[in-house]
């Protein structure tokens, strides 16, 4: 599949993960989020930005626990848990948030 953004076609795999990470930008993220029925709030962006920063350093999305710890620090203890992350990204913070952040899908038994 693909996303139409600013008159250009951005390629994605069958599940909607963009194939060229460098083509990501914030408007495209909003577009992907729309497809996922997610209205991007500041909290959503907090997660997406953390994922992107982590990926830049470690070349993979953070483990769920690493993510919840970081969100706890930035948004407070009542939001630093996986329940809240699932409220933000119902299909799973690791997979759905990665898709919106333009990162590859984590694979394996997860």
């Amino acid at each position, binding site marked *: 599949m693909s996303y139409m953004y600013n008159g250009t076609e951005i390629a994605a795999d*069958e*599940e909607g993960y963009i194939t060229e990470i460098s083509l990501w930008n914030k408007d495209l993220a909003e577009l992907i989020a729309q497809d996922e029925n997610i209205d991007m709030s500041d909290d959503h962006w907090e997660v997406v930005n953390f994922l992107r920063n982590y990926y830049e*350093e*470690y*070349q*993979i999305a*953070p*483990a*769920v*626990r*690493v993510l919840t*710890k970081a969100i706890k620090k930035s948004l407070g203890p009542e939001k630093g848990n*996986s329940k809240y992350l*699932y409220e933000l990204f*119902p*299909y799973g913070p*690791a*997979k759905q948030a990665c898709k919106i952040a333009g990162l*590859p899908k*984590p*694979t*394996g*038994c*997860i």
Partner: protein
Amino acid sequence: MADYDIPALPDYPEIPPIKRDVMAHSQPYIAAPEHQEALGFPGELVDDWHDKALTKFAELLKESRALQVFMDSCVKCGACTDKCHYFLGTGDPKNMPVARQDLMRKVYRKHFTWTGKWLPWLVGAEDLTQEVLDDWYSYFHQCSQCRRCSVFCPYGIDTAEFSMAAREIMDHIGKGQKYCNEIIGKVHKIGNNLGLPEKALANTLEGLEEDIEEETGVAVRLPLDVEGAEILLITPSADFFAEPHVDSLIGYAKVFHQAGVSWTISSYASEAANFAMFIGAGEQMKMVAERVRKAAIDLGVRRIIVGECGHAWRVAYNFWNTLVGPFDFLDPDYPVPQHICEFTWDLIERGELTLDKSANDHMTLTFHDSCNVARASSMGDKPGGQFEIPRNIIKACCNNFVDMAADTIRESTFCCGGGGGLLTDDLMEIRAKGAMPRMQALNEVAKSEGVTHMAAICAICKTQFAKVMPEYGFEMDSIVGVHQLVSSAIVLDGQRTEDEETATASAAE
């Protein structure tokens, strides 16, 4: 979210009415050329796929006595027909084990038996047409290779052997499955299914050490690449990444700490899983297993312990020695390899661990036997140890434990619905429906015995249940790992008491 119906949970197990071809549309994503070629398979469906498939089929029949015998020995008695969780959850008759086998057997008869060649109508022989190939791709990815049917077959015919062989043939003609093949490629390239690089692994482990110390006041280590350690832990990479898996990893670390043994994780072999088994690829399976052997030798360990991963334990227990053995460099005084449950249970039996059962009093537990542990391995030195040891650990850590119905546990256990390389989002419908029989049994004890949580020792089971249980009305965190329970119950030497914890917490405020 689901665009399919979740089966209702009956009060007692029911055999569903037949719904012909209702799951024919279910097919996983095809592996991309780069995923195929990384494993030495053709990138896409080859032009002469029919002949190539038959050549491979002939090779497999020659290599595997089991496959040859299973092709010939079915007498159509029907004992297996209502034993597959995917049939029970969908009603599609091609999900009856005998019908699944016959998708392959009819081609076998057509090309490899005299009667099938000359009197095809008499024995149901059929050529490998495009339509049959599509059926193969669809229905051999609706088999989790859990082998429940083989327990009930009077000849012991193992449908997993069919689905492994069919997938192997399809890989060789360029029709592979994306999920498994992409993942095996990642193991070769990065060392684990997740694609978790060394730096990220080190960062994750350090984070967990901080968490444990914060929680208990004890500095429990999760060592990485420590040469000369006594034990190498080989665990599924989901343990580093996902929930509830990570809580079991913390459990192993606490047990090792309390036992006072030195241990290490390897960044080179940071994966217990061996998905090559799911696609029947012997050579790939060997290459993945070889990583473990090399890591053990390079680090100079004396023992290998395998974490909570079902099929990995099958591979380790049954195949490591023949694939990449002998492991004569390991200490023969301990099981080679050893399961983490064997290690922990031994300590409990010797009274080496202090366990506070009341830490798990908010739960009433049951245990889901994972298929590959239950039907393809053992633990300890007594028959049935693979059933007893995990249960014994749970009972040592929890006051409330109840088993599910006898015909749904132990060697008759129902698959979680996500095993055998089906744990992928593109197969969500068959996964959700295939979980029905296990959910039915769980629901029964939830209602009658007040069971709140189910424990398992397999990363696939944990992920599958966390995903599908909410569709059946259970909370996603009602699936737990056995060592997660150990982690809650274990009292470490020097661990802060609850009063001290409250004091620390209020001081911090």
